[in-house]
């Protein structure tokens, strides 16, 4: 097996720029490994012919000034790709081929990247283990009986297994950061509105945000730079100048104030997580940062708030999958209503149905004020907690997840315990802030654990810098043994 696929994105870009490898060779290396890695089930669709053709075109006339010159990339199957199946991990869209390209993927192709395939994910991004996918669960390359996290589980698994040099996911409540933490990779959820949502299958519109998943912080900055940008087709997109995150990346974090929120020390949290958090603090302190204890008092309400807001929006966003226009339609039923019922009963999986039910309930007349409206108010309080503390600190350090990767099937019958996995990640989505998960160590089983850095609105550069400095001093080494080959 080639050692090249193990390299970071930035190293691969260097090889291409120095003409030490051709785009086509590179594509073939990844294709070869993807073909041998079916056990992981990280790809739903492969676009190999397309990738070869595009890489040949690139090699004929290489534009080496682009950010991702001739780099093959697989993306989460929630991004609509023109001419390629986009399933959202659901039977409902099993055979759906968009005739349009999402803004974020379009931005990647414009920077020279080449679509390699579509990566598995929880159905409609609803899940924390990639076990709700209609196309089967994804295996974490860390160990064959563990989940990669979710919902961007296919992305995390493929990345950690060297089946793509970098990737993108979407993060509604932790769907980038939690799988990054579970697979020993870097994942960043940008500020809400930094990356366009146009062309991404919607889960919860006010929370959904696309972001990069990479093997290093530098790679993360390159990918973010390529995918971010104002899009007039998305009314919630932020109008601002593009930033050069990779060029401005630096390790000097002297004098930066890092907040440690006491509310993130939750009951029954494994000792290892606490130790990891302390390790993080001391690394940053040694680098000259000031560590400051802070309080985010409404943190404990974040999870229940999230599980009202997200399902409410999802129940409405998923109403369009009705069998009328595209996607799955049941052959059973004597009238319109029966067709709807059968289509949606057969087309959606259990977790999606559960959230549609919850969402429909919390928006119903008589319950709206008690649930949805109250949740919106709490959401404001959670945001206010962050705003107030960002007067005192420049970034906040927390664990990314309350545990390392759990076993396949361990939580599938216990949705609450599954939801609890998002406890450290959801407050960030509710507040619309950027946050990055960086690998920080291994637990005693040898499974990776991540730490999360939360930044101010549009302060991606700052958390990238802190993460970059941390990464350089943490000596984390992912131990993936290619057991599936």
């Amino acid at each position, binding site marked *: 097996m080639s050692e090249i696929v193990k390299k970071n994105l930035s190293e691969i870009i260097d090889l291409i720029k120095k003409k030490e490898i051709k785009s086509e060779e590179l594509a073939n290396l990844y294709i070869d490994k993807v073909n041998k890695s079916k056990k992981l089930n990280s790809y739903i669709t492969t676009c190999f012919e397309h990738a070869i053709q595009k890489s040949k075109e690139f090699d004929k006339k290489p534009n080496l000034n682009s950010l991702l010159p001739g780099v093959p990339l697989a993306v989460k199957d929630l991004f609509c790709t023109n001419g390629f199946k986009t399933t959202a991990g659901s039977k409902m869209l099993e055979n*759906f081929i968009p*005739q349009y390209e999402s803004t974020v993927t379009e931005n990647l192709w414009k920077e020279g990247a080449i679509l390699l395939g579509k990566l598995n994910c929880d159905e409609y991004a609803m899940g924390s283990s990639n076990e709700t996918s209609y196309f089967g669960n994804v295996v974490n390359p860390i160990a064959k009986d563990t989940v990669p996290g979710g919902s961007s589980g296919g992305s995390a698994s493929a990345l950690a297994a060297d089946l793509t040099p970098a990737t993108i996911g979407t993060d509604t409540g932790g769907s980038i950061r939690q799988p990054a933490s579970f697979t020993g990779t870097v994942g960043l959820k940008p500020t809400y509105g930094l990356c366009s949502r*146009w062309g991404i299958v919607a889960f919860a519109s006010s929370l959904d945000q696309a972001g990069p998943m990479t093997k290093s912080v530098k790679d993360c900055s390159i990918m973010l730079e390529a995918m971010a940008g104002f899009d007039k*087709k*998305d009314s919630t997109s932020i109008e601002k100048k593009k930033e050069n995150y990779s060029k401005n990346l630096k390790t000097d974090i002297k004098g930066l104030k890092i907040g440690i929120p006491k509310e993130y020390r939750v009951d029954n949290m494994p000792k290892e997580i606490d130790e990891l958090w302390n390790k993080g603090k001391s690394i940053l302190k040694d680098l000259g940062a000031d560590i400051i204890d802070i309080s985010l008092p409404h943190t404990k309400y974040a999870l229940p708030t999230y599980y009202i807001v997200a399902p409410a929006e999802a129940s409405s966003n*998923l109403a369009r999958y009705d069998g009328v226009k595209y996607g799955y339609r049941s052959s059973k039923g004597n009238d319109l209503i029966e067709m*709807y019922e059968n289509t949606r009963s057969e087309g959606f999986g259990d977790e999606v149905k559960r959230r549609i039910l919850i969402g429909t309930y919390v928006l119903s007349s008589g319950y709206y004020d008690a649930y949805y409206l109250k949740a919106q108010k709490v959401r404001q309080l959670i945001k206010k907690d962050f705003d107030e503390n960002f007067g005192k600190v420049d970034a906040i350090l927390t664990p990314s997840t309350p545990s390392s990767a759990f076993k396949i099937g361990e939580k599938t019958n216990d949705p609450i315990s599954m939801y609890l996995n998002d406890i450290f990640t959801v407050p960030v989505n509710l507040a619309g802030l950027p946050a990055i998960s960086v690998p920080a160590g291994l637990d005693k089983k040898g499974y990776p654990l991540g730490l999360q850095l939360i930044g101010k609105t549009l302060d991606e550069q700052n958390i990238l810098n802190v993460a970059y400095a941390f990464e350089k001093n943490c000596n984390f080494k992912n131990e993936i043994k290619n057991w599936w080959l």
Partner: protein
Amino acid sequence: MSKDKFDYFIKGEKNNYEVIIGLEVHAQVSSNSKLFSGSATKFGAEPNSQVSLIDSAFPGMLPVINKECINQAIRTGLGLNAKINNNSVFDRKNYFYADLPQGYQISQYKNPIVGEGKVLLDMPYGSKEIGIERLHLEQDAGKSIHDMDPSSTYVDLNRSGIALMEIVSKPDLRSPEEVNAYIKKLRTIMRYLGTCDGNMQEGSLRADVNVSVRQVGDKNFGTRCEIKNVNSIKFMQMAIEYEAKRQVELLDEGKKIEQETRLFDTKKNETRSMRSKEDAHDYRYFPDPDLLPLKIEQKLIDDLKKTLPELPDNKKERFMSDYGLNSYEANVLVSEKEISNYYEEVAKLSDKKLAATWMMGDLFAMLNDKGLNISKSPISAKNFAELIQSIKSGEISGRIAKEVFELMVESGDNPKKIIESKGMKQQSDPKELEKIINEILTKNKDKVDQYKSGKEKLFGFFVGQVMKQSGGKANPQLTNDILKKLLKG
């Protein structure tokens, strides 16, 4: 109901009832593209030829507000003397239907773009103010076609996503006649503003009609029924009359009115229950997270205000003071922007009062006969003004003028040209007339004697003879004067 006093009451067996009506008018915004997508909005296009990925709700598609639709709603709000809200919110109204691709309609629920306003009606019994509760923007749905195939329903999404203004009145209307006047007034205002073409045949204007009844003198409202989606003024009036009578009959029998949604069957001329309050949809309204709250700067409102055209109420007042028209005439002549423009052009070049009379008489009758809009009139305003001036100056008589008018309709020619070429000019030269009259008097010596001995009725005979002799061209006034003078002598 051309009476001086309001008298629309429904007489039940025991009591006399008053009818309370409120309207929710759905007016299609005049705009080139839809409320949240760039698709075209032309009426009558091939099915599904004006549908974007957004209108058909493909995965990942997002709405973006069309600013022109916002401006049109603000203009309409200003035309209704209403408060424009600087902050409003787009909500999702969730329900499933085959012609609703998103599974929800984007509408405005708690915070509409336009708040309270008012519309003035000119009723025969005086002017009446109708309160406007609110105006909000929303998307139209597509169209389900059930009669193309015995076993399938077809869906046309051309209309899906087109911007509608829902204009909600207060329950201030009291009769079908007032509803007629209200809809027409709304339509006139929106046509003046160019914000809705008001074309009811094409579905640009439709209404949900809320009807309740109460005993005359009662202060509390009765239970109302909502008649959905009525698309002509005539049907609205018929539906109200039927529904009010139905409710009165129930109350007279000691029964209760159930709050419900009803449909008007235009073939049977009756309303039928569609769903009761218990079966009412739970629309699960919530703010659309794909759209930010709509902020409207005061400057935009002020700027739009400056560009508003003169509206019918103001124009009517001006017509009365500038052109000396009475209220009725002014009302008719401002009822359409094009009519008022035509009138003003004519009035500037000719006698204002005579122009109004001729326009509302012969011109409107002709246009009505031919089914033409005034903008398609075969007689231009300039030619019409010349005709009025020819009458006013005495060049032609009213009777001849009618002939000239007919010829103008046929040929589109200038009236001067017609009068010249056909020799229709009025005989107004006193000497010439005197000559004709003298000849007639000489020929009818016996009749002159009878007249002089007291048979004054014969005056008409002499006039008739003069007209006959002159081919109808003798100036009637002058003829009278000269005849009187010569018969005296």
